[in-house]
């Protein structure tokens, strides 16, 4: 809170420092890309404050020069790797493979400029989609037609 106040005080004199970067968690990280760091912080806040995930910690990938998050959805659940990225970044398949090699399920979180988030699950190999649930709509439609005729 004090840091935020500092930021507002300085506004008149020079460029204010990014308050996110002043956050105690962020101060520990040393990754050069500040836009990715910003995205990581938003995802961190989303996971901890909105979704109430547990054990959310920062991790780094020195090979890819990226900030990662490791988190559990519930206590006792599996650890998941979360890759926060601003939407305008590009990504190579090799780096995705590299992150999958960490051995945890991977969530890609794209952060738009208005801080909306979307999580996409990435898995090694071919994952068959789940079959559609419930009755087909077609059957219902036919019944309705029959009723109308009656």
């Amino acid at each position, binding site marked *: 809170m004090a840091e935020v106040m500092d930021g507002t005080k300085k506004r008149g004199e020079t460029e204010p420092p990014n308050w996110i970067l002043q956050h105690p968690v962020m101060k520990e990280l040393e990754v050069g890309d500040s836009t990715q760091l910003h995205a990581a912080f938003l995802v961190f806040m989303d996971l901890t404050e909105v979704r109430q995930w547990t054990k959310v910690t920062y991790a780094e990938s020195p090979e890819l020069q990226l900030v990662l998050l490791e988190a559990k959805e519930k206590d006792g659940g599996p650890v998941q790797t979360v890759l926060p990225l601003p939407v305008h970044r590009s990504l190579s398949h090799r780096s995705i493979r590299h992150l999958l090699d960490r051995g945890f399920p991977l969530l890609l979180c794209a952060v738009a400029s208005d801080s909306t988030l979307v999580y*996409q699950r990435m898995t090694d190999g071919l994952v068959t989609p789940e079959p559609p649930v419930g009755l087909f709509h077609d059957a219902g439609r036919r019944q309705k037609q029959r009723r109308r005729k009656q």
Partner: protein
Amino acid sequence: MEDQNQESSDPVVALSLCDSTPLLWRAQDLRTVRSQSVVGALLGSLPRAPRQNLKLGRPLLLLPEEERLLRERHAALWVMTERTRSRIQAAEMSFLRREQQRSFEEQSVFALEDRKSALQRAMTSSQSGKNEALQRRLLDLDQNFTFPRSALAIQLSTTRAGLNYCPEARAFLQLDWPIRDQGNAQFDTRYLVFRDLWGRGFFLTSAGKFGGDFLVYPGDPLRFHAHFIAICLSLDEPVSLLDILAAARLGCNVKKTVLLCSPAPNGPVHYTSVQWSGMV
């Protein structure tokens, strides 16, 4: 080993090229490739229903990857190129000339006999004075009779055996530009992915409708919905995150998994499934 046996026992399909577009025409060839889980796309008009495009008939258009796969598996795949076509035409021409020569020789023998019997009939019916002259003419005929070529009766065969698919239609369908470019790296990537997925028993069709490279079916497309939308890319190619999001969103809506496919250099193909996490 088993694979090799299969290759040799499978019938070879006749692939004809319309300019650079690979087409299959024979019904048995269509059945053969379908049994090898190669789908292709029908694009011919049905003679009984020419004014619709929901149900189509022969020819079957092959994807460039399907064509390359068939070429690789069948060494003796017959490709109807311009050169083979002209060679076939030359063979047909020489056959026709030989037939005509044989017919000419046969007909000249018959014509000579005809002439002789006519003279003999004249000899028996006429008086003895004229007979000597006729006798001389008969001898003369034996020595220098020539059957004029203009009198040759020409035989036209109305039924033929072998492949002759409407050359006039082929000329009509000739395209001005080559559609496919098989030499580039992008095509190789797609082909390696295609071959690998096909080898796993999947049926593949093109996925232009879904913004991907291939639609991957677990069985015959007539019986199954596709499970995957395959997107082929090389390992190091940078992809915009927006593109991945767009593909994943669409895949989620149509209940298919988006599959990022990258062949490793001289190794297996890497597959990464992308699905929406369900976190609203």
